[in-house]
């Protein structure tokens, strides 16, 4: 598998004869963003429809506990972060479906619990805080080959999942009861979608960190909603804005010497404000 990566890097060498693309870490970062940004933006479209931004934030913050568990168990934190994120995602979805509590109250409880648990474990061990730093802020410049392969697998999984489930997810996003009368298996779609969100969020943490991970999912989709009138346009615009802000953010961070994850998010935010302006100026009708 690593051989495939070498070929990809060789290809990038030839296609991108620019100074910013020369260092190996820049090639890795570019590849990471090209893999994770479209996956996050594609999942983001229904996520915004479901008003699940807070949900993805809770999954992101579950990485505190995920990292701590990984170090406690002596396995790579990437695995425990993904597994614990998936666990929290399913737990929230199940609890939400079985109580009359409002969704944000349920998520709020989980949100605080996973942060508290993570901090409790980390504070009991000296020397863990440094390890946590990289997860808090993320850094696409420090992505390893293994993580790149994991992101490629994730993009493929998200693509296959959305191919088969996207229409049902959107119908569920319009109205749950109505979707049920049209034969949508509501609970199965909810649980599978929350699992996919958990996978995307935990992988995107590598690029932008816990604090900004929700931005990768929410900002491109919200920017697309500002201007799109149909489902197709919304999806393609969201993915396009994610790729554009990923590439331009990476290049800008190279020349401005700023944190890459943060610069990528700022580029996406700029797209949001531009589309919001466009929406405000567009004649009604």
């Amino acid at each position, binding site marked *: 598998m690593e051989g495939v990566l070498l070929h990809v890097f060789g290809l990038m060498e030839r296609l991108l004869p620019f100074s910013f693309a020369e260092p190996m870490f820049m090639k890795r970062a570019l590849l990471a963003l090209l893999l994770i940004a479209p996956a996050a933006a594609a999942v983001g479209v229904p996520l915004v*429809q479901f008003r699940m931004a807070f949900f993805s934030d809770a999954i992101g913050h579950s990485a505190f506990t995920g990292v701590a568990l990984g170090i406690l168990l002596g396995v790579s934190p990437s695995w425990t972060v993904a597994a614990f994120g998936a666990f929290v995602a399913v737990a929230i979805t199940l609890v939400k479906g079985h109580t009359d509590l409002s969704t944000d109250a349920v998520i709020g409880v989980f949100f605080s619990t996973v942060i508290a648990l993570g901090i409790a474990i980390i504070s009991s061990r000296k020397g863990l805080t440094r390890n946590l730093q990289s997860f808090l802020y993320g850094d696409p410049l420090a992505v390893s080959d293994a993580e790149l392969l994991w992101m490629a697998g994730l993009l493929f999984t998200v693509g296959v999942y*959305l*191919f088969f489930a*996207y*229409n*049902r997810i*959107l*119908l569920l*996003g*319009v*109205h749950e*009861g*109505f979707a*049920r*009368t*049209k*034969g*949508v298996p509501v609970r199965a779609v909810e649980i599978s979608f929350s699992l996919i969100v958990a996978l995307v969020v935990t992988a995107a943490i590598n690029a932008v960190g816990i604090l900004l991970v929700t931005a990768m999912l929410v900002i491109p989709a919200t920017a*697309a*909603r500002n201007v*799109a*009138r*149909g*489902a*197709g*346009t*919304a*999806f*393609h615009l969201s993915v396009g804005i994610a790729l554009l802000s990923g590439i331009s953010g990476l290049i800008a961070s190279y020349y401005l010497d700023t944190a890459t994850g943060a610069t990528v998010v700022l580029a996406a935010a700029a797209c949001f404000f531009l589309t919001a302006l466009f929406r405000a100026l567009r004649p009604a009708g």
Partner: protein
Amino acid sequence: MSAEERLHTLSIRNLSVRRGGVEILAGVDADIRCGEVTALIGPNGAGKTTLLQAILGQVPYTGEIRFCRAREHGEGVPRIGYVPQQLPFDRDTPLSVLDFFALSQQRYPVFFGHSRRVRRSAQDSLDRAGVGHLLHRPLGRLSGGEFQRVLFALAVRDAPDILLLDEPVSGVDVAGAEQFCDFLSQVQRSSKFGLLLVSHDLSVVTRHADQVICLNRRIVCRGATTEVLTPENLASMYGGEAHLFRHAPADGHGHLHGLPEGKG
């Protein structure tokens, strides 16, 4: 073979629904036959919408709901279409009417475009509902009446055996309601599905229904429209507040206008 056997029928026997310890429906018996319009009337809180939800399998119930399919139509579960009274959704959703039609019919995702079959059937059923021009409009920009027609067109597209309509003319003006009902009976006559119509508007009921079920947690009475809609029955159901008068049969069919619950 008698006429009865040739029709499919949704038969409901001894249906009861309890929610939170409160009995919402008790011992309901009814037959909804294909090719007929059955009106379901009753005061607010009578359990009309709950009965629809039970038929759709969306609330737990005791008793039996069985679909007896005429032999020549083959076996299988009935297709039940449903047009809800209202469908609150996010008006800002980037979704066109065509997208909305594609979501429940197309296998591949809508962001790869729409199949020719989806396009054709959507245009066709929208045309039949008189709203063919709405195909490319964003769903969130439709008026209440337009949206209801789109929902109706979508329900008809899937060739239902039974179509459930919850208050199809609420929030539509009188002329719009008449137009919609005429169109409804036209589609219904050509498509031969069974129509269960929940309505407050007794003029709609008397003009279009073959059979009436009066519901108030249990069946108050049921039967042919002309036999059931007597002032006595309505008084016993609406608590004597129904003011009923008979129109002169100027348009060829005399019909009743009622003002249950003091509303117009």
